[in-house]
């Protein structure tokens, strides 16, 4: 695809709507090691952008930058046009950004509904006692709405299957994300049927007009879900493609650098 054509696509997209998240010139170094050279990426509401690349390409680093875990060495992050800098992960969350981590970040021995409200438990009355009833009802409604199939919101996490756990993690992100969800290999440990279910959930997030940045090693999945694909290789941004106008061969050669 020619440079000019790529630009036109970018322009037409920009005309459609202002980006929710605009990363420009993002660079991240750890000590002397450059994790990300120079990355610019726009994300629009209701859009799924896939981040692909080999191990060590800088994908997880980018997710950690957007979620406030790491600060970029240079470059700017704009959220709804406003330049932002998150002090930590909770700062990003207050801006409506949620992350679904590879290793889930669920508390295994606690119930589904307590995990749903982990760190944000609802309370009632002057003594600020936990309002379990409201948390249970809220979680039940959400789980039903998203069609996450779990035995009960009172089940403990460790009694659930991998797919059910990931369902809970994504439901939690849905519950709290008003703008952006970052997914770091959400289906890496799942079977075929469970993966399909999680992909359904991701599409339902998109239908709620939430922007999604997903890291995935499965190109099949990337082509099933994403609107655009951003390819990284050893910290370099190789390019961004519209999924509908690209194919696996092109993406693979971008990832590997082989033609």
């Amino acid at each position: 695809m020619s440079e000019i054509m790529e630009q036109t696509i970018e322009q037409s997209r920009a005309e459609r709507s202002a980006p929710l998240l605009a990363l420009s010139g993002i660079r991240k170094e750890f000590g002397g090691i450059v994790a990300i050279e120079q990355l610019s990426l726009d994300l629009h509401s209701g859009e799924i952008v896939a981040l692909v690349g080999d191990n060590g390409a800088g994908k997880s680093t980018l997710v950690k930058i957007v979620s406030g875990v790491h600060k970029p060495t240079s470059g700017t992050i704009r959220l709804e046009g406003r330049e932002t800098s998150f002090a930590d992960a909770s700062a990003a969350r207050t801006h409506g950004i949620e992350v679904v981590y590879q290793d889930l970040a669920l508390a295994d021995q606690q119930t589904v509904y307590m995990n749903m409200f982990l760190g944000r438990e609802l309370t009632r009355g002057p003594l600020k006692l936990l309002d379990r009833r409201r948390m249970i009802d809220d979680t039940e409604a959400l789980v039903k709405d998203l069609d996450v199939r779990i035995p009960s919101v009172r089940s403990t996490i460790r009694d659930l299957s991998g797919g059910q756990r990931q369902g809970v993690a994504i439901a939690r992100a849905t519950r709290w994300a008003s703008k952006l969800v970052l997914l770091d290999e959400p289906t890496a440990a799942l079977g075929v049927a469970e993966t399909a279910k999680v992909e359904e959930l991701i599409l339902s997030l998109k239908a709620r007009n939430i922007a999604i940045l997903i890291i995935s090693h499965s190109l099949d999945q990337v082509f099933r879900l994403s609107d655009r694909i951003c390819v990284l290789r050893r910290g370099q941004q190789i390019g961004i493609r519209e999924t509908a106008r690209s194919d696996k061969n092109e993406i693979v050669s971008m990832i590997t650098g082989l033609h």
Partner: protein
Amino acid sequence: MSTTERGSHGTRAITAKHQHGRGSLWPVLGRLEPQNGIVYLGFVAIFIFFAVVLHDDGFLTTRNLTNIVLQTAPATIMAIGLVFALSAGEIDLSFGSTTAVAALCAAMAMQTMPALMGIAAGLGVGIAIGAFNGAMVAWLKLPSFLVTLATMGLFAGVARTLTDLRSIAVINDSFTGFFGSGDFLGVPSLVWWTIGAVAVGHIIFRHTRFGAHVLATGDNARAAQVSGIKVPRIRFLVLTICGACAGLAGLLYAGRLQAAKYTLGESDLMIVIAAVIVGGTALNGGKGAIIGALVGSLLMGMLNNGLILMGLGVSDQMIVRGLIILLAVAISLRDINR
């Protein structure tokens, strides 16, 4: 169980025992603390055993049963503190020594000052030691096992040097009444302390955000951290709570015995840890039960009492108690590693 589970999505059955003990033998306790019906069953079984075997030795008399509660009051208070620490994935080994130092400081203060100063001294020392442990663990990132192992020895030594191994009499009537021999509405003050501490502990543990954060920290510290829970702060607070409970236990000892000595709390370490584990608190965090700890503590007290009434010598008591604790802990941990 509400089943929305279908076909391909997770065929793992959720067994009834994880469904919050609904319809169990102990519906009220089951609802308060879902996870540990077995403790209550064990408690009742041992109670019935002693009631039958020791029928003629006065086990079932009101006086003896009250005595059990009175004797276990300090251990129950320490157990409450330990539930917080263990649930958060930490441990406190120093609470026995803290109890002795707190009791001695309270007694020393009351030699010249009013009861209120003694209370402040005892509680203050407990909180200070707990906060010291907590600070080492939370901000210097040292493992609580090693920190409290060290402070256990350290404060055992302090307790010995404070009074040169002598015991100090507590002759303040308002103090000994309030913390020991007195009663209110016909119920001994130590029973009130037990009820009060369990109620407050249970409410904080089960019904506040702090309690939920303690469990989350012990369950998965990283998940807690990324969920915005201030994990170091939780670690600091649970160990401070342990120290405060040990301080209160020291006051109860001083009040009941009307004296303080460096040996106070010395033999409580094993009993309290056993009571807490038997009561359904996980040794590796994420799961805890205050009322279970109370039942566990009463169970240990009952065991102690029953073995004495059976006429066992001290060494036989130790052996039997050790074996029963081993059995009880094995039963209560049976499904931790599944």
